[in-house]
């Protein structure tokens, strides 16, 4: 298990390193004067020259990449020249909002998805199972930003049940949750369908296993067998899928943050792109990819930890 964990962590680090380096390389090798890009067209030539020397823009590409990582490792993600603040500050004040959104979405999709999936497997081939199946596919198919727009229109603008703007009062948990509910639901809805299907399929597979027959042969109550024994194994693949799904949820979060006018990584990148604010784009990418890879890694390790068979196999 330890060796397995070590391998996964190394791989994750390598992926983040290569993914970010590649993006960084594209940014610095793109034709055009980076000082124009970074400082804006109205910067004075003196300022440009100073900046160029300061940032080492004339160094070879590999040296620039090395320097970039050297700065990143000391926590320096560069300067946000548009608003004159460190990029790290901008990014790390945005990150918690996006994390809340993504984890809210995971909460929705895991709770509803496992419920639907277990229920379907328990009543397989009933009409309720079939309806659930079609609904699951429907959820999967619904594009998250259309769901976000529709729920904004229905629940916030028309019915006024939920707020339309912002992330709630700082320090007020209830207000935060109230503002979080709808956007996270919009992101999570598609995953409700995924999780439900995966849980249903793996549950049916598990229910056919010999040890389930053993449990039933010992007269264990139906509820214990289905929800205690079978479900425990059936949610393992769902954990993995949700871990990998965080990448998709981060994309959806961009829309949810813009549609519901929430602060977060998505709206930060969006605003930076429209303002051509490259250091912030780069810093946000780094944090977004790091966050995603970390989550996928954790899901992987949790899965391995929950499934004791895994511990010997690796």
């Amino acid at each position, binding site marked *: 298990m330890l060796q397995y964990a070590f391998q996964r962590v190394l791989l994750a680090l390598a992926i983040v390193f290569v993914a970010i380096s590649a993006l960084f390389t594209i940014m610095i090798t793109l034709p055009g004067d980076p000082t124009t890009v970074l400082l804006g067209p109205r910067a004075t030539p003196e300022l440009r020259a100073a900046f160029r020397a300061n940032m080492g823009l004339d160094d070879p590409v590999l040296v620039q990449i090395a320097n970039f990582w050297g700065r990143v490792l000391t926590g320096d993600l560069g300067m946000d020249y548009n608003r004159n603040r460190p990029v790290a500050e901008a990014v790390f004040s945005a990150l918690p909002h996006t994390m809340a959104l993504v984890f809210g979405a995971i909460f929705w999709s895991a709770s509803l998805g496992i419920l639907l999936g277990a229920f379907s497997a328990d009543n397989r081939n009933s009409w309720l199972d079939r309806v659930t199946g079609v609904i699951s596919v429907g959820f999967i198919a619904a594009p998250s930003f259309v769901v976000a727009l529709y729920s904004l229109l229905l629940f916030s603008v028309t019915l006024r049940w939920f707020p339309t703007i912002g992330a709630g009062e700082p320090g007020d948990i209830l207000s935060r949750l109230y503002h979080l509910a709808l956007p996270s639901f919009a992101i999570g809805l598609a995953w409700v369908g995924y999780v439900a299907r995966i849980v249903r399929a793996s549950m049916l597979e598990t229910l056919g296993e010999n040890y389930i027959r053993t449990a039933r042969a010992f007269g264990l109550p139906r509820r214990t067998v289905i929800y205690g024994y079978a479900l425990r194994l059936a949610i393992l693949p769902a954990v993995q899928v949700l871990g990998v799904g965080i990448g998709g949820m981060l994309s959806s979060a961009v829309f949810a943050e813009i*549609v519901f006018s929430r602060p977060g990584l998505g709206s930060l990148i969006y605003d930076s792109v429209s303002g051509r604010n490259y250091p912030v784009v780069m810093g946000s990418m780094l944090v977004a990819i790091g966050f995603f890879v970390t989550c996928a890694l954790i899901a992987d390790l949790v899965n391995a930890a929950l499934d004791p068979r895994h511990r010997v196999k690796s």
Partner: protein
Amino acid sequence: MSFRHTLAGRLMADPMAVVALIIITALVAIAVFADVISPHDHTAMNLADRFAPPSSTYWLGTDNLGRDTFSRLAQGSRIALYVALTAVTISGLIGLVLGMIAGFGPRWLDNLLLFIFDTLRAYPTIILALALAALMPRGLSTVIIVVVITSFAEYGRVVRTQTLSLKNAEFILAERAMGASFGRIVFHHVLPNVLGPFFILAAMNLPVVITIEAGMSFLGIGVPPGTPSWGATLKDGFDYIRNTPWIIIAGGLPLILVTLGFTFLGEALRDQLDPKLRKSR
């Protein structure tokens, strides 16, 4: 009886597949005949009729510039289909070739390609799209490039797995023992068996690509301004959500229907082509 015949026959027996085929046929028909069926010129602005609700003149109402929403959505289906087919074809072909190389190639090459696939998967699509959009000109080719970068790895993985399992299958070992050429093994044995999962993935991927295009256009990093992409229509609707709900409702419908159609088709294909999954349903 040919394989295709039996597959089509079995698909027609699946209500989900029939619904899917109806939706997809309608989409293609609307895209082909967009100019004929549009009641108005999709670029014509009738400032007198801004924010008009649905009526016999404007079936799905008008937007902030008085343009007919239905006509714009009909034109949008062309953009959606064009981007989806182009991007899926390109990323599918790249993935197919790389996946086969990984499957047949030496161990180090396989590991390298797998690592590249893993790395590409680490980019959240829309966030990468935003980052690249900052560097590239706005337009459909940017959309297609973003989609290809973020999706060919998925094809590569599937093809690689399939190739690996086939490479050591007994019937292929037998062929090799009898001295079959590498080309014969690839084109006669591996490729046909890889194509099943490949097409399922492609069918599942089409709606994803359509959604990415719409999403990028919604964010203003997709189609150039004025182009009637579904995403652009939704963006107009979002900007004027308090004036009129019609634009958003109408703009989201085709996206939902089309993704539903392709997802149903992918599901039905998978049910038919993958016997293991069929059993567990």
